[in-house]
């Protein structure tokens, strides 16, 4: 594939991610932090986010299955998830987390479960989107091009 086309596709895709609200300013800043000394910074951070999130989602699912639900614990997990998602700029996940915490405060099991579903959904969405973005990036890099800012 033509490098220029790849680059354009990459830019378009990234713009659409911003546009659809999957990502926000924070992700741009994250990218800005990446330089020669730290070439894989974004990927590292994002994969860390994936690991972390999956762990947290599992924890949450387990916690909500319990007979007596420990809302404090759930709140702490959601807080974590919210923090890390806002750190990488996955703002849709972050927003669901806010709603999740509200339900948690109300000790609303159904709301929590609904939110868990949503978070899972949003998380998998952003994960695929980011993975495809990184794939595109990788393709450009292997083709010898530079990542357009």
């Amino acid at each position, binding site marked *: 594939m033509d490098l220029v086309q790849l680059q354009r596709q990459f830019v378009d895709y990234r713009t659409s991610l911003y546009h659809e609200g999957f990502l926000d300013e924070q992700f741009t800043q994250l990218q800005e932090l990446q330089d020669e000394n730290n070439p894989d910074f974004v990927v590292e*951070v994002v994969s*860390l986010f994936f690991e972390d999130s999956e762990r947290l989602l599992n924890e949450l699912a387990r916690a909500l299955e319990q007979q007596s639900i420990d809302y404090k614990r759930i709140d702490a997990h959601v*807080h974590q998830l919210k*923090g*890390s*998602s806002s750190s990488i700029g996955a703002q849709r996940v972050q*927003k669901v987390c806010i709603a999740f915490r509200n339900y948690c405060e109300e000790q609303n099991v159904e709301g929590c479960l609904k939110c868990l579903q949503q978070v899972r959904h949003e998380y998998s969405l952003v994960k695929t989107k980011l993975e495809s973005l990184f794939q595109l990036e990788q393709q450009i890099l292997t083709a010898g091009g530079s990542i357009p800012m």
Partner: protein
Amino acid sequence: MLCCWIASMMSMNCLINCQFKCTEASLLGDSGTKMWFKCWDIISTYSFKIHHHYYQFIGSKRVSKTWWRKLLLSWVIGWTVVSIWIFCYMSSQATEKRRETLASMCDERARMLQDQFNVSMNHIQAMSILISTFHHGKNPSAIDQMTFARYTERTAFERPLTSGVAYAVRVLHSEREQFEKHQGWTIKRMDTLEKNPVHKDDYNPDLFEPSPIQEEYAPVIFAQDIISHVISIDLLSGKEDRENVLRARKSGKGVLTAPFPLLKTNRLGVILTFAVYKRDLPSNATPNERIQATNGYLGGVFDVESLVEKLLHQLASKQTILVNVLDTTNRSYPISMYGSNASDDGLELVSHLNFGDPFRKHEMRCRFKQKPPWPWLAITTSIGILVIALLVGHIFHAAVNRIAKVEDDCHKMMELKKQAEAADVAKSQFLATVSHEIRTPMNGVLGMLHMLMDTDLDVTQLDYVRTAQASGKALVALINEVLDQAKIESGKLELEEVQFDLRAVLDDVLSLFSGKAQDKGVELAVFISDQVPETLIGDPGRFRQIITNLMGNSIKFTEKGHIHVTVHLVEEVIDSIEVETESSSNNTLSGFPVADRLQSWKGFRTFSQEGSIHPFSDSINIIVSVEDTGEGIPIEAQSRVFTPFMQVGPSISRTHGGTGIGLSISKCLVNLMKGEIGFVSIPKIGSTFTFTAGFTSGSSSSKEYKSQQINNQTNSVSSEFRGKRALVVDPRSVRAKVSRYHIQRLGIHVEVVSDWKQGLSSISQGGSAFNMVLIEQEVWDQDLNGSAHFIDNLEKRAITTPKVFLLSNSISSSRANTTTSGVCNLTVIPKPLRASMLAASLQRAMGDGNKGNPRNGELPSLSLQNLLPGRKILIVDDNNVNLKVAAGALKKYGADVVSASRGMEAIELLTPPHRFDACFMDIQMPEMDGFEATKRIRDSEQNINDRIHFGELSVETYNNISNWHVPILAMTADVIQATHEECLRRIRSESVGRTSVHDLLMASVQPPLLWHALRYLNKSQFFPREKNVFL
């Protein structure tokens, strides 16, 4: 009780006084009235004293009204009694006087009557001597009726009181016949006459019957012609006469009959009878001897009535009194001798008369004809006193009532005053409470709006949310202002005492307004005199508030021209007042005329009393002027500029917004800073606000400050430029001064020239080369050819070609010009000038690496890159992603980052000795949150510091640091007030030493906020491990 005592004392005194005066008055007559005045004086002094006492009494205790009623009543009653007494006294005096007058008159009359009677009596006695001598002593008798009658007639003037004199001879019965024969008439008796009273006309002595046979007889032989009818009548036959005769011969003195109607005249009269003796008898002769020696009897008839009448006629004022003369021999039946019998129970006086007859008693009774007159003097005096007393009482009453009323009013006023004050306090409290209560939910609203903005919104929705957020922010700002006002009014606002950099504060304010100024095309400039110390101790927040307020107002009302802020020392301004006045009106920042700022501080006390400034004391008085070329304040509105909520006009708030509270708050704040605020404003030209404020010098008070000073923000960047030289081309001296000030702050030596020619000459002359040339945009635009020529020559003449900068007011226009001028190495420095921005621009143009973040234009990373390399920073966060991002951000700027995921780990790492320069800590962490971890770290630091201090631990093992205190910054995504306040609370409870609100930092993991955090760290002297408290 005191009142009673006073009252009684007073009344007693008055009585004494009055009595004294009264007696005196009666004695002195005329002077009496004067005395009364004196008396009145005394009374009034008493009343004054009473008032005095009353007031004293009031002072200690309020007298109840009833007390006053009683006192008043007793006063009135007392004075009524006194006036009655005076009346009685005076009228009795008058009566007494009248009686005395009467007595003296009566006595006088009695004495005269008695004298005249005595005279008559003496004469009759003399006549008896005559008869005894010439009738009985001679034989034949030398006296016959004829002689006697004539003699008596001719000597009648000697006896004014007698109407007639007769002589009767003693005839014994044995001698009767011889006697009758001798005389030629028989002795006649009198009693029939008495029984059958005869009228004068038909009086006939022959009608008398001859006297019956008696032992002896006393027929009248001689008589005065007037009473010749009594001749031959036997006196002893008349009842009255017989008694008289018998008594007369017994006593040898003249005796009087009781008054009886006289013969013939029938008028009331008395008869005086003297006995005529044959021989001279010794004075102590017995009555019998006297009877034996009796020869005859001489009798004089006294017509008492006519007699008294005659007497009284001789006296003056006879008509004023009535005189009665009575024979009171028989006490029970006094016989009236003279005067009417009209009985009058009025005043009557009795004088005794002595007519020489001890048996008979007479007296004279005198009365006034008129009844006694009313005692007007007494009446008027007493009534007068009563009236005066009542008036005084009334005055008392009125005064007491008035006082009571005034007191009541006063109490009411006090109550109202208290209420009003309470209401005012309540108002302020209400405002404070309500404002606070509104602010808290408002923060929630703002936070939520912020979150809402992050959600998926379309353009319209986003616009709505932005508007809502802007309104909310405006509301919070307003509430803060109202809260400030309320705090100031209730006196709760206290100023902080912290060290701050005045220039940094002004830079901050300037950056706040730079956007707006650029939009409007208004030039903004700050100039701070070199004399003003780098750091001051005071309240930077409030100082900033004042400046922001004034500049905000200026920028609101200024459409063209400039806003110029100047800061001087007060001493400096006083010295230069004369010089300043010379400056022409055109020599301003933008060339527009301005209101002369000298006028704005005309009224300041500081200038009028220069003695109050102590040059050696720590206090620094600065004077700040904000000068604008706006529309000015209308003259009629100038007086209420500092009144809260008073704007120039209602249209102002519509066109420009605002509450009109800002200036009022500013004024209060300035007052709190022991300064003054004033202004001068000329409509259509502009306004200049000037205020003074007192601070203390920062550098002299703390030694530790000196080390910090080096690390000042401007200094950290200035090291790069130190020793360099700059040329400023600007014809306007005021503007050049501002440029020079800012450039000099970077340590650059500045020379100012006014045009191209001078510039070139100084470049070619100068021994050392200029590193940069800064050209005012105005100069550049005016003469493009000249500028091109200058640039050309610059390259030729200068030893090393200096960089050329354009000082421009608005970015867009300057860029356009740059392109047209075609000079490629021209860098634009946007105004307003600030040290940090200037440094950034210069560095970008002159430095080799341009790694700065182009997005912001301000290049905040510039200083960070100088700041962070080699610094060891600990990041504590339980969230791996956050940890990684934050670490990445810090590492990017060269910091040596250590990560920790738990609070306990952080505590271990931060237990001295360690090499960390700072710590970023998440607040919300499981197991141990940020607050707790910080507290433990502080405890351990304190512990070690103490032990080092007491020598238990050696300083060497602790890297020669005796005071461990690592800066800890809180990281949170939660920017809502509650967290901020919680941080504050924690800081307050755990702080070591004094801490200001500004020491608190809230950093988000988001890089823009992180930069803020790092900038903040930089500002607050991050590197030396001094006593800065962060959470």
